[in-house]
């Protein structure tokens, strides 16, 4: 069980509207940062900043050590086979685009025979799901448009769970890529990764996992999951913005053509052509966000010290309070499985009958409760649920039962405030 961690997070001590204390329930959008992360970045900037992998001086050495050390920490968090399987990106969206663009470049002939396993074209299909965040949908739409491949999707049922019976028909011999979320940022439902991977392997398709909502909240073992790539961001796992990571199997990363070109990523350059480093360096052209990488590494260490099993258990407890609580409020509809479900993260997203999500969020904000409103970059899933927007409460390691109770009390007052008949 986790101790009360609020004191680790300086921002949580500030007051918000009307001098109220902050009940921060928007961690699914971005999480707050503990002293451990803030201090690691501060110390790096004050004492160790230097050009990574370039200089011959002490600072350059220390900076390189910090940068690569952070990579090692993130690799351990997700149980990568080696730190070289972690590629730094500016965020998770960039990580997903790195894979999609790399496949696009391979399809245009880059990388030659070694990269031919990535080729997609007319007659091939790319499969996503109805539950995807736009970041794991649009890059694949674009790849399909660019290569002539067809985009297909797996639907979800009324509770937001994937209709696994469709795997066998939607994913077929034409499928080259299956891109799907590990956990929905709207419903919190955790996908049956094994089922996706098993079907993808049957047809020889690559699997790309959007792990943004899972890595910060539950134990994630990329090797055990069996996927080929996984993307996640720093700022949702208690780290800073401006940094994310792509995990990929080394054998695949080494032959995936890069799509951002520049210094540092190359083996040799002549005026005619360039050969690239193996992964991860081939994808890290130009000066990297080193301070942010150090911060993400510190966040990984912080989470591992807490223990991801305990983190998951803590958030399940908060989720239980919120999900059961909202089920009892008249006129409030929970998107996703109702009550205590085994396969749902610490997220509760609701639609309030007769009140627009912006108005719901405004009333909660006035009470010091910070939630996310809108479509959460998942318009297709909202359409599936028959709503245009919703209000989301999401937990993290620092979320308390009191935060959850304040959300529920505020939510219960919304319809009365707007004069909606009971």
């Amino acid at each position, binding site marked *: 069980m986790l101790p009360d961690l609020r004191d680790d997070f300086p921002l949580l001590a500030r007051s918000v509207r009307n001098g109220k204390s902050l009940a921060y329930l928007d961690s699914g959008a971005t999480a707050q940062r503990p002293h451990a992360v803030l201090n690691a970045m501060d110390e790096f900037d004050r004492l160790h900043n230097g050009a990574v992998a370039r200089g011959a001086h002490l600072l350059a050495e220390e900076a390189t050590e910090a940068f690569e050390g952070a990579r090692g920490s993130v690799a351990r968090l997700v149980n990568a086979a080696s730190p070289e399987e972690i590629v730094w990106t500016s965020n998770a969206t960039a990580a997903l685009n790195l894979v999609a663009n790399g496949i696009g470049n391979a399809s245009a002939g880059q990388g030659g025979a070694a990269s031919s396993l990535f080729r997609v074209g007319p007659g091939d299909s790319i499969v996503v799901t109805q539950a995807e965040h736009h970041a794991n949908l649009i890059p694949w739409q674009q790849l399909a448009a660019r290569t002539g491949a067809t985009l297909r999707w797996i639907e979800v049922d009324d509770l937001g769970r994937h209709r696994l019976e469709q795997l066998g028909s939607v994913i077929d011999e034409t499928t080259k890529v299956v891109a799907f979320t590990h956990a929905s940022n709207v419903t919190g439902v955790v996908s049956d990764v094994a089922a996706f991977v098993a079907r993808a392997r049957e047809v020889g398709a690559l699997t790309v996992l959007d792990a943004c909502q899972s890595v910060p909240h539950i134990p994630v073992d990329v090797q055990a999951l069996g996927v080929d790539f996984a993307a996640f961001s720093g700022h949702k796992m208690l780290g800073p913005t401006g940094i994310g990571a792509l995990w990929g199997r080394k054998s695949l990363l080494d032959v995936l053509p890069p799509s951002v070109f520049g210094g540092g990523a190359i083996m040799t350059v002549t005026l005619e052509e360039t050969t690239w480093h193996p992964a991860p360096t081939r994808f890290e052209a130009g000066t990297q966000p080193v301070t942010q990488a150090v911060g993400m590494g510190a966040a990984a260490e912080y989470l591992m010290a807490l223990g991801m099993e305990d983190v998951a258990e803590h958030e399940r407890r908060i989720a239980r309070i919120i999900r059961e609580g909202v089920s009892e409020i008249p006129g409030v509809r929970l998107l996703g499985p109702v009550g205590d479900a085994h396969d749902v993260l610490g997220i509760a997203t609701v639609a309030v009958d007769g*009140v*627009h*999500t*912006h108005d719901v969020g*405004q009333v909660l904000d*006035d009470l010091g409760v910070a939630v996310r409103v*809108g479509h959460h970059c998942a318009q297709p899933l909202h359409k599936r649920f028959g709503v*245009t927007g919703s209000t989301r409460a999401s937990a993290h390691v620092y979320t308390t039962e009191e935060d959850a109770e304040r959300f529920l009390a505020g939510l219960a007052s919304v319809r009365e405030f*707007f*004069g909606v008949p009971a």
Partner: protein
Amino acid sequence: MSSLEQMYQQVIMDHAKSRHGAGLVQLDLPAVGESHQVNTTCGDEVTLRVGLDGDTVSSVRWEGQGCSISQASISALTELVEGHSIEESEEVYEAFRALMGNRGEDLGDDRDDMLGDAGAFVGVGKYPARIKCALLGWMALRDAIAHAQAAGVEGETHG
């Protein structure tokens, strides 16, 4: 009055419920223009149709979905501009925009009178994220007027 109550004044709540001009109907006027606007942050949208008679905004009809601020704002603007000249509606728009940028304070001059019910949106100015909601209808109105003017000119040329 708390900031929240200042934002959701009764006038706004009333406009959000009984929406003036709601319902998109055919307008039998010399120049008709339409605009569809979307607030990309929340997906709120409005389709607004304007009918001009010379320089007069004769009719405003719309349908939309959105928060109480956006819906009430469209309703209030419909009341304000219908029957007035294009120039007057532009003046009201400028006043409303100034109010949105005034951080929750009245403008303190005769523009407050000009704004009528729309003056009740003063509290929205304290919440930068919501100003877009209040302006959605105004964007649609100005765009629809521009389309109506263009249609009117075309009508004259061909007529």
